[in-house]
């Protein structure tokens, strides 16, 4: 904090809080702590920091005007971030992998980066799809493709206006507006037969992430690991054997598939309409397998 504040003299408390993404209260607390810290107990041996009047000014950083070297976590974060960028096509990042590699080598020589931390390359089969979508985004054209929704196990032809390409954990995605349905996020590995249309892209809805419903579910403690598959908003232990969790769901079909895959007694507590739909999907699945007397 000290070197950064030294370079941002007169910055407001709120700007410090925003930069470090901490609360205003925590910011004031940290500044107070800083003002009583130093090499000795006398005033001239401590950081001379003035944070009155909603402005922060470091008058004497006690020689600490450069940041300490990267710790192991920061070094690993930088390394993995660079590795991940290097795996992406130039159309997505705007950077050639060679540029990233050269930079990484320069930094590795100057800063102790963690060994044994790497993103393993994959054989991306979708580079042509990447290029087509990137071109469509640049030229603001609509695209059509067959999309396999593995949450529902169906393939539907879609026509969308693509907005941005990115990857999460090396799974490339495109955010696009599907007309009449809203914003969607599509995994490139599930896209097939893609065509760039002559029609111009239309963005008649402001960008917003896919809508989700908060669903309250009850999970046996012994099966708590299934929550790894969900975005969990909150959870609490209801009894010694049960946990109640609020999870985000955008498709009841997907939720029913998660429950079927675990084969355990996950109950939906609310909302009722989701519970009814999920029960219906599970009944359909059961119709494929006759019930045994000794089934769980």
């Amino acid at each position, binding site marked *: 904090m000290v070197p950064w504040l030294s*370079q941002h003299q007169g910055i407001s408390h709120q700007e410090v809080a925003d930069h470090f993404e901490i609360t205003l209260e925590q910011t004031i607390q940290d500044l107070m702590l800083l003002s009583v810290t130093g090499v000795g107990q006398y005033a001239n041996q401590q950081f001379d920091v003035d944070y009155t009047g909603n402005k922060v000014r470091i008058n004497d950083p006690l020689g600490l005007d450069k*940041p300490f070297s*990267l710790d192991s976590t920061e070094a*690993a974060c*930088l390394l993995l*971030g660079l590795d*991940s960028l290097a795996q992406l096509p130039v159309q997505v990042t705007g950077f050639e992998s060679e540029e990233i590699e050269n930079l990484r080598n320069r930094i590795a020589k100057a800063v102790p980066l963690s060994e044994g931390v790497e993103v*393993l390359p994959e054989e991306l089969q979708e580079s042509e799809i990447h290029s087509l979508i990137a071109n469509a985004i640049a030229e603001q054209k609509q695209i059509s493709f067959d999309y396999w929704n593995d949450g529902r196990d169906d393939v539907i032809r879609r026509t969308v206006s693509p907005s941005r390409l990115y990857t999460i954990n090396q799974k490339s995605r495109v955010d696009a507006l599907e007309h009449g349905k809203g914003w969607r996020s599509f995994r490139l590995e599930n896209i097939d037969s893609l065509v760039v249309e002559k029609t111009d892209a239309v963005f008649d809805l402001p960008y917003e992430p896919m809508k989700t419903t908060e669903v309250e579910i009850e999970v046996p403690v012994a099966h708590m690991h299934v929550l790894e598959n969900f975005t969990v908003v909150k959870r609490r232990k209801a009894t010694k054997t049960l946990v109640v969790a609020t999870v985000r769901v955008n498709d009841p079909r997907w939720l029913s598939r998660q*429950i079927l895959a675990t084969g355990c007694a996950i109950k939906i507590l609310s909302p009722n309409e989701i519970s009814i739909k999920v029960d219906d999907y599970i009944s359909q699945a059961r119709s494929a397998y006759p019930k045994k007397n000794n089934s769980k």
Partner: protein
Amino acid sequence: MTYEEELEEFPPLGDDFVTERLVNLVMLLTSSRFGFTKSEIAARVPGYSTESPAAMERMFERDKRILAVNNIVVSEPDGDEDYRYKIVLNTATLPEMTFSKKEQAILRAATLAWDNTSQKADAILLRTKLETIGVHSDYSNNVAKFEIPIDLETVFSALSDRRVLNFEYRRPGQEDTTKRSLEIWGVAVRSGSWFIYGKDRIRDAVRIFNLFRVSGGFTISGEQNSYEIEEVDLNELLDPSNRDDFSYEVELFLESGKGEYWRDLAKLDESNSKSCTIKLMLSNPSEQLARLAADAPGVVVKAPKDVVEIVSDLVWGANE
């Protein structure tokens, strides 16, 4: 070592007293080229002065280890009672570096990848440090992202210090966990999965673990640099056929327009999505059996009987 002992060894840095003492210690040890003896340190750093000599000694040794994890190395004595400890500022701080505009954008993009993870706070500090040495970029195209629910700080610390990482691990398809003590050799990411690998001390063998199957967090034990990192072929280690030592041949009925995943595995003609029956080997049974249950009734297992029973149990166990 118990969790309480671990906590004693590495107290959370959110503790203001610990942070203040550490900052004071760093400031003191960087302030003089000649360094300070233990008694001078005890007299000048308020956190130490209230403790007995033995407690101060323990606290000082622990603080040195915490600083070492953060790449701030306190010089080590050579047996001299009046050794003068110091931190050489030039080696502890980031070097002067200059970056082109493009390089600054690349560095910023690399830190943005962590915005949705529990490592976000580390990424902000990383960005701050880079900014302070001249990385100023308004690049905001969040093209590479990580999603990982586990706090990796302990993992990276163990790796960097070559200390043993302890955790409970749940094997695929099993509910019970087993205790693991890993000489961690590395962290790898592939296809959205995060892995740690190294030598499992309990089993005395090289093992790879999916981080999503670690239950209840990590602890670190043992001395620093207590083992050597050996070279391994990660691709071989990650090969699914090496991770599962059993396989099944199954017969599946695929309804029209359903079972895309299975059609793909069976290498069926992409244009043909009609109803059909296929035979294939399950390469990763623990995950594929769960998928078969989820894919019902569009995909139904016809044979062998024991697989039909496993999937049927999953389907009928669900929500019961």
